[in-house]
């Protein structure tokens, strides 16, 4: 059992701090939108496909609206105007809007505008209903073929080619994987559009596209039926297209998404404001679609030292949690991220890792939690690397992780081979089988190294929360408090895609999402 280590009041205090830290950011979020949010709106209306040059239609349209200086009213508004102009289909709407001199378009009379908005709202409601129906279909399949017990064994496929990925994902599912993550091609985070169609050329991963999502989910549906065990699919809702990807994933019935409030800022140098706005909308979609989000605190300790920066993980988790709750996500949807990353050459690392994982469990008792295996200190000696992963398997089952990324013995070399996944799955199954329930066998001593370390980490985590509250998140990020990376409010990519909402900003999806219970 994870100890108390700390009192319930202390945990509650951290939550208050997180609320106070995020409130001012919501002040900002509520006043802004981004090109990506607006593209998401259009996608949801059914604007699909790419233009002549291969650019997605939603990009063409939103760029047009932005160039015309009118995007701040919301793409939905202009979509409505296009319908008014007689557009017969979303595609047609795009064409009409792209052609029209929007700057000069006269405002509609108030009543007409209200009627138009109602019409658009109705269409949005229908689109939301359709999304819900798709999600319901997914949920029905999940009920028909119940998932295996947690920790859910999560493995990645990353061939660069969606068809090879399918091959590998099926094999992984057969070997016992509960969750398949399709890793994205390197630097997709920085693309300010979502590539289109099935793709077969990526580096270090496969492009996240709606069609790729569809292809993979279809294969996994098939495999789930064969195995009589639902196999989950996840991808990345990160980077400049956070919200669009969340939508595509929801539509294609994905089960989880990597989605973090700060990852893009820190690790992709994406503008801070842009990230906060996008993540909010993306999370609203996840909340609706019953998608579990996985946060990315584990990344902090691949750049910063895992022992020294342990507290930053905890601090960030509370902030991520608050952002998530504010976006309507329930506890069961919070795959809060942490990892087994302390340098294995140090003494006591199993105790230290148990301490950290238990502390996280103590703070977030109702969240599934997402546990990452060692990566940074992995060696090219695959036998050592395998032994090292096995210890992470043990901590995962000990602390009842909901989602466990399996370490790969070739982590320090290449993206996993088919056999690497097999080896990892076999070992994890053994450890889970062998050790399940170990948490109920032992009581952790409050005077031991584990408890003392947990309290020390906790203290620093609370201090950092207090600093974030006192000086603001922006200042804290500016000081490199998270992941040893410093970012400024106006630096990074994508700021040009952030717009202040007009007074009459119109986004019927946001209305729907925010009013959903």
């Amino acid at each position, binding site marked *: 059992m994870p100890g108390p280590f700390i009192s319930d009041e202390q945990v509650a205090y951290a939550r208050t701090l997180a609320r106070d830290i995020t409130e001012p950011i919501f002040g900002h979020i509520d006043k802004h939108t981004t090109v990506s949010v607006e593209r998401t709106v259009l996608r949801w209306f059914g604007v699909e496909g790419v233009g002549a040059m291969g650019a997605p239609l939603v990009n063409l349209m939103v760029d047009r609206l932005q160039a015309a200086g009118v995007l701040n009213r919301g793409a939905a508004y202009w979509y409505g105007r296009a319908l008014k102009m007689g557009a017969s289909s979303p595609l047609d709407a795009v064409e009409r809007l792209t052609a029209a001199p929007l700057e000069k378009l006269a405002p509609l009379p108030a009543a007409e505008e209200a009627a138009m908005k109602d019409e658009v709202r109705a269409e949005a409601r229908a689109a939301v209903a359709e999304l819900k129906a798709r999600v319901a279909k997914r949920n029905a399949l999940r009920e028909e073929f119940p998932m295996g017990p947690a920790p859910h064994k999560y493995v990645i496929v990353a*061939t660069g080619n969606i068809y090879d990925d399918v091959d590998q994902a099926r094999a992984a599912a057969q070997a016992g994987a509960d969750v398949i993550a399709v890793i994205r091609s390197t630097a997709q985070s920085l693309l300010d559009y979502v590539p289109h169609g099935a793709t077969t050329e990526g580096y270090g991963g496969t492009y996240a596209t709606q069609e790729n999502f569809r292809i993979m989910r279809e294969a996994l549906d098939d495999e789930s039926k064969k195995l009589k065990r639902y196999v989950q699919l996840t991808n990345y809702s990160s980077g400049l297209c956070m919200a669009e990807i969340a939508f595509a994933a929801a539509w294609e019935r994905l089960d989880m998404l990597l989605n973090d409030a700060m990852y893009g800022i820190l690790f992709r140098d994406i503008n801070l404001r842009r990230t906060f706005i996008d993540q909010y909308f993306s999370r609203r979609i996840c909340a609706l679609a019953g998608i579990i989000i996985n946060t990315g605190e584990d990344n902090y300790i691949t750049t910063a030292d895992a022992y020294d920066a342990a507290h930053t993980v905890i601090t960030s988790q509370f902030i991520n949690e608050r952002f998530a709750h504010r976006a309507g996500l329930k506890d069961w949807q919070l795959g809060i991220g942490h990892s087994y990353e302390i340098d294995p050459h140090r003494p006591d690392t199993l105790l230290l890792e148990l301490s950290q994982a238990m502390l996280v469990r103590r703070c977030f008792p109702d969240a599934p939690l997402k546990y990452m295996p060692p990566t940074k200190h992995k060696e090219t000696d*695959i*036998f050592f690397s395998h032994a090292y992963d096995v210890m992470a398997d043990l901590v995962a089952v000990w602390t009842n992780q909901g989602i466990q990324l399996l370490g790969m013995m*070739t982590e320090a*070399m290449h993206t996993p081979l*088919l056999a690497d996944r097999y080896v990892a799955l076999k070992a994890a199954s053994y450890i889970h089988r062998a050790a399940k329930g170990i948490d109920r066998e032992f009581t952790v001593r409050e005077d031991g190294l584990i408890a003392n370390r947990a309290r020390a980490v906790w203290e620093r985590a609370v201090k950092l929360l207090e600093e974030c509250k006192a000086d603001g998140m922006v200042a804290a990020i500016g000081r490199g408090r998270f992941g040893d990376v410093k970012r400024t409010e106006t630096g990074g990519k994508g700021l040009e895609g952030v717009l202040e909402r007009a007074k009459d900003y119109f986004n019927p999806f946001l209305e729907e999402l925010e009013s959903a219970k």
Partner: protein
Amino acid sequence: MAAGTPIRAYGDRRDDGVIQLSFTLPVPLSEKAKEAAKLFCQKLGLTEVKVAAAERAADNYTFFIAYAKTHVALDWAAIDTPELVIKKLGFDDLNALIEKEVGRRVVVFGACTGTDTHTVGIDAILNMKGFSGDYGLERYPWFEAFNLGSQVPNAELIRRAALKNADAVLVSQVVTQRDVHKDNSRQFIEEAKKAGVDKKMTLLLGGPRVDHKLALELGFHAGFGPGTKPSDVANFIVHQVLQRMGKEQRGQHWEGEPR
């Protein structure tokens, strides 16, 4: 897989030919040692050799882990494996069949011969308890099984089996260092020939490094490897007996799985 398609190793993508190797060279760890490891792999005909790890196993030994590609391709259709197909009868049916068709108990002798003392395998086949829920031959009322235990000289096993006119003799070989199991098995076959029982009795070989092909090569009638169940062996022996009695054609087996 489509007939005729050559088969290649699969690492990350179909037919990429990726394999993993590990080996130790008697040289101290150094850049030169790593280069030697690369050359070593190249001499094996491998390309795109990545010497992933070079570990100082001792002052004068380096342990290497490498990933590389090979052009080796196999013609699946051309691969020949004498596979032992055993479609089995269940416990009761098999006993009933022996009663009806053979009309007497089937006699088998088994031992771990030579210097080998690993009796767990032969016990699994012969003793009451059996193996992973499958009863051993002693449990079959229509079998009469003698388990002579371990370290039994080959000649002794044959002598005892001949005395009882055994239908089958079971030899277990577990220690395989420097092919001691093959040497001992060959010696068994020689003894069997000398005693003139090699044509009369069904001679079975088993053990963790035994397969049907190897056993045939060594002169046995069948070979049984890891995971063998007693019922596999019981069924095979009954077929052999019926065939010797002329009641069944050579190579026949029952269809379907045992009940």
